[in-house]
């Protein structure tokens, strides 16, 4: 990367990882090997503020290596990242600390988190293209895999919550269609999270969309069985049962079995 106009480095980690160099002339994709991408993701996402100590990076990315070799590997990786990102983007503070120049780097995770923090959930969800580092594989470094998994869980829960907040807001604004759409989206974003699924199904029921609620329940139950080999909890089953019970104001003029 480089150029006379200092480019912005755009790091997208929600969904498939993408790295772009953005200049006045447009966006150009930049390809980096998996381990460097993971290191860049780590630098971009952690910590919320401040710099990274080399020791902490070694603990995540080279946990089992001999300390000298690990330090040398980190040095090499950081220097390759510097080359990829262009001058001044990855900065060193003293001998021990590194940081990304936040003015030159845009990362979707930060954009998503900031949008959710200021309650701009629609903008947050527009940035959420999929699970954190989807389809990203880096074999042989379990500490990195754990970090990715923990971020994925955290961000998925935040995305589900954002959709839920939008559903509630739409209900309060008297827009049942949007409320139902966002409720379904909240289930889709955290498909195995039972309390999330249950509150969304409850909202569909409250909106008078019992058919939609039953369908959402059926899909949730099916997914639990396929992926976890288990069924829903009694609370969720009771909720589904309540949608099967004929409501008090039964339509008495139609014969239940007439035209199935």
């Amino acid at each position: 990367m480089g150029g006379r106009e200092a480019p912005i480095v755009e790091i997208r980690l929600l969904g498939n990882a993408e790295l772009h160099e953005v200049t006045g002339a447009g966006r150009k994709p930049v390809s980096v090997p998996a381990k460097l991408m993971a290191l860049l993701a780590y630098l971009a996402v952690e910590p919320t503020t401040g710099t990274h100590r080399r020791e902490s990076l070694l603990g995540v990315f080279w946990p089992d290596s001999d300390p000298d070799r690990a330090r040398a590997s980190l040095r090499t990786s950081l220097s390759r990242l510097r080359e990829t990102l262009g001058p001044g983007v990855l900065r060193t503070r003293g001998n021990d600390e590194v940081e990304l120049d936040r003015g030159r780097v845009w990362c979707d995770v930060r954009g998503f988190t900031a949008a959710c923090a200021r309650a701009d959930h629609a903008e947050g969800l527009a940035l959420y293209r999929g699970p954190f580092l989807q389809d990203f594989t880096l074999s042989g470094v379990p500490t990195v895999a754990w970090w990715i998994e923990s971020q994925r869980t955290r961000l998925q829960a935040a995305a589900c919550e954002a959709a839920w907040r939008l559903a509630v807001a739409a209900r309060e604004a008297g827009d049942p269609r949007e409320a139902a759409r966002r409720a379904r989206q909240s289930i889709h974003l955290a498909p195995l999270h039972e309390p999330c699924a249950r509150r969304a199904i409850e909202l569909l029921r409250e909106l008078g969309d019992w058919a939609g609620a039953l369908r959402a329940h059926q899909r949730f139950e099916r997914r639990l069985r396929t992926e976890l080999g288990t069924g829903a909890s009694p609370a969720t089953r009771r909720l589904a049962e309540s949608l099967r019970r004929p409501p008090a104001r039964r339509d008495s003029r139609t014969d239940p079995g007439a035209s199935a």
Partner: protein
Amino acid sequence: MPLKLSTLGGLDLHQLSDGDRVERVELPGPKISGLFLYLAIEGQRAPVRRSTLCRLFWSDADAASSRNSLRSALCSLRRALPHVVSATGSPEEIGIRPDGLWCDAHAFDRAASNGRWREAMDLYRGAFLRGFHVAEALDFEQWLDRKRERLAKEACSAAWHLAEDAVRSGETVEAALWARQSVKLAPYDELNLRRALEFLDELGDRAGAIHVFEQFRDRLRAEFDGSTSPRTLELVEEIRSGQLVSTRH
């Protein structure tokens, strides 16, 4: 345009040969068909990563053997459909040549996003890849499900645009047909059902409204042993008793 892929209403793949001759193309097995379909649908916007294809079709295998399976599936696909699957700048990505393939789902999207509702509905002949499935490919099946739902929702919205257009031009019969069609396209959406019931009643099609409701109710009962909500039942009562205020006629 040498290859014509129809997905709306079921899978159909045709090769346009010299002159106007059209030949049906059979792909070798559901997994290779699934791979081609995913590339055809998602790969026209941007190349697809190998890791994504591995997750979609071989998520149970370890990384090395899923990559091998993908390699051999891509070989079979290239043999069956030469010149359609293309290389990209990166060995990690697979592309599709947009000029070599026409797909009805893309044409539908283009028509719907440009407000050409009639054309969109002509293209939407039924559910996306109806009846198609790939065993032991859970993530692909989920993609299929979401795609199917999104396209049906788009079609439902197109049907409503046509219904409203028809009302404005005084075509009551056609308006009622599109409203009924919207319920067929959103068979689990009770909010849409109520909209259609009110719309039909306002058109003066009380019998149509009751009939649509009964079909919806019976299907819900057959499939989930479920019931429509009290709100819907109240609305049906109001329609039956003529309490709903009509504004359109």
